């Protein structure tokens, strides 16, 4: 049996390097795709975004705040506007992404103990820049407000520590763990790479059995395996796990270090989870391949199943915010479970036992799909043998 499986493994490797539908997807595409995803975010933070200032006050305070806004990482003041329609027009033309409005008589109001309001307008249709601009602008303006309050207290004769405590009675110290400066490359590249991997594996796995019919090699395969469905499926799985390991080496030894996005101390845990994802994906692909003889149909099913995995997994938009039916649907994708575990063992670098629930889910996929694939393929073999006997008779 071991000999037979080994023969199938070698034969499958040869097929991977010979058939374009295999080597394009498993060998040529991964380095291109993974480097591309990492390269997109080579400038991992958004900086110097074009902002307008609408200064109706023209006072020392508004000029000081404008100066402080310009000092932040995201804000770069490029335009001066004089009205809301003018600002809207600039946004619609794509010339600016936001504007800060200082109202007329702001300085005077502050001096005469009347509150004034500074308004930040952002283009909500450009969500990522809008959120980043808000973060920096809010910090400057809130600090500016605190400065005004502090001056008032100090002028009234209050001592500095007391005044400080009243300016900010409750100081919030915020720790953004595991990606302190919201680095988009560290966040998105590993996720995109792994979702690409599951897609690559499934897209090829759906062709593992039925493509033998297309290349007229099924009889040869059955001869090597002595008509043993178990040997065929195990042999092909081992061969493709070997290819998956090649891609793992590509990721952890080339792509992640090249783009400096590795998380030290996570390789072994990542390797374990990666193997489970690969096996689950091969299992699903093998099952589809054992049921459908039509390779185009199998590929269409794979495409429909794998392409939404990224959005359904909750990577960018959390699953709890999705309607209940989509939350259920996301559970039938191995990538969802992989990602939950990947967050823990890779992004958060936690011990492996925190990902046991996700490991169990991936094992369920493996435990269900492989036996079913063997059953379906065994039925197919019987049919093929019956057809062979009939044609010989």
């Amino acid at each position, binding site marked *: 049996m071991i000999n037979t499986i080994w023969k199938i493994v070698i034969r499958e490797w040869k097929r991977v390097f010979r058939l374009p539908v295999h080597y394009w997807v498993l060998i040529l595409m991964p380095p291109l795709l993974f480097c591309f995803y990492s390269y997109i975010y080579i400038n991992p933070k958004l900086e110097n975004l074009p902002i307008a200032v609408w200064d109706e006050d023209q006072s020392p305070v508004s000029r000081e705040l404008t100066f402080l806004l310009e000092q932040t990482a995201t804000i770069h003041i490029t335009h001066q506007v004089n009205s809301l329609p003018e600002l809207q027009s600039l946004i619609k033309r794509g010339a600016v992404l936001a504007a800060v409005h200082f109202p007329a008589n702001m300085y005077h109001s502050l001096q005469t103990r009347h509150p004034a309001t500074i308004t930040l307008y952002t283009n909500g249709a450009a969500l990522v820049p809008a959120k980043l601009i808000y973060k920096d602008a809010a910090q400057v303006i809130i600090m500016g407000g605190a400065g005004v309050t502090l001056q008032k207290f100090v002028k009234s004769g209050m001592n500095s520590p007391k005044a400080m*405590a*009243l300016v900010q009675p409750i100081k919030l110290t*915020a720790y953004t763990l595991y990606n302190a400066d919201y680095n988009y490359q560290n966040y998105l590249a590993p996720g*995109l790479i792994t979702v690409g991997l599951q897609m690559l594996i499934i897209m090829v796995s759906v062709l593992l059995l039925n493509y033998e019919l297309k290349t007229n090699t099924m009889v040869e395969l059955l001869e090597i395996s002595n008509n043993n469905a178990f040997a065929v499926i195990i042999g092909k799985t081992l061969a493709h796990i070997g290819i998956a390991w090649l891609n793992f080496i590509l990721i952890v030894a080339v792509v992640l270090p090249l783009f400096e996005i590795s998380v030290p101390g996570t390789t072994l845990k990542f390797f374990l989870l990666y193997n489970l994802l690969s096996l689950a994906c091969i299992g699903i692909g093998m099952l589809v391949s054992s049921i459908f003889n039509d390779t185009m149909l199998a*590929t269409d099913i794979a495409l429909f199943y794998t392409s939404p995995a990224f959005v359904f997994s909750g990577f960018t938009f959390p699953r709890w915010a999705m309607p209940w039916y989509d939350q259920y649907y996301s559970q039938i994708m191995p990538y969802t479970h992989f990602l939950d575990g990947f967050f823990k063992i890779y992004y*958060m670098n936690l011990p492996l036992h925190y990902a046991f629930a996700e490991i169990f889910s991936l094992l369920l996929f493996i435990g269900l799909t492989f036996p079913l694939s063997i059953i379906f393929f065994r039925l197919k073999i019987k049919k093929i043998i019956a057809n062979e006997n009939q044609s010989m008779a």
Partner: protein
Amino acid sequence: MKTSQWHKFIQLILREASMIIKDHSLLLTLLVAPILYAFFYGSIYINKEEEEVQLAIVDMDHSDLSRQLSDQVNNLQIIDLVSAANLQDAQEMMYKGKVQGFLYLQSGLEKKVLSLQPANIVLAANAARFLPSSDLLSGVTQVALTVGGGVRLKYYEMQGLNEASAMKEVMPLNFDYRPLFNERVSYGAFLLPGILALILQQTLLLGLTGSIAAERDKSSVKTWVETAGRNPSVALYGKGAFYWILFFCYALFFLTVNFNALKLPIRGSFFEILLVTALFLLTLIPMGILIGSWFKNQLLCVQIMAFSTYPIFLITGYSWPYESLPLPLQWLSALLPTTPFLSIYTALVQEGGTIYQRFGDVVHLMILWLFYTGLSLWRIRELSKQTLI
């Protein structure tokens, strides 16, 4: 166009329809996938924004102030507080993925505030997931400022000021945030229009490239070119017309039915949106024919094209600003019709802009149309030579 050419043009449209009906993969991609994907992907973001992000709270103070703080945080639509016994407990909840962070209220918090000493509260947010952590951060910051304002209000009232005067003193400089064109800065309202446009593009490209690859796979390029009277322009637009009509109908469907179902506003002129979409589809057709013509195998074509969706979307400037892309990717992005189209489409649909305000992008799209038309005509000529020899 001469009558005979019109005849050939119509014949090519009918030929394409008959080819698609016979090919179940093309049938699925062109007739089922666009509608199915539009509802399928659309449903994910139907709630538009996340709510009730779980945040653990460790209240070591057990005072009126700490309870007021927790109540205010819990009252935010975005946050759902979960009680934790101590820091370890909260940390463990975060590690297990049950909460997205924790808020720590130290013992003696109220005492410090009342005695005008600096008092600290600590928020630890799991930034491994960007959206929940940034929402937690802005929500808790807002509450800390509000409660802080309340403390100052009490101080002024104790100093003898009446409520109205005290209110004026509490926040001398206020900050007002007004996001335009997506007032709630919701993820769904931002992403959905782009996703629908991408579904339109990718299903068209998958179908059209698949159809061209199938022509080569089944050695029917000769029939295609001969039906067009060996005229590359008729071959290009005869085949492409079928896709243009079909996908223009889908665009209409998305802009009416899907936009309504997903409660997405269209702020600009509907006519201008249709005009730009028509030009966009017209540009995609020669581009699809050009790409498909390099494949001899329909299966391989579908496989490769399946991996184009995310890379295309990520470099169009929709989710990540175009100017922040590395220069070579900016050049590549400029070669995609999606880039100028999404820029105009966003301005029209979401910002209520006009075509004139994005005139540069319109010219960009027209240049790409001419560019891909030229290349695809050349390629059809090449294929004709190969097959007709």
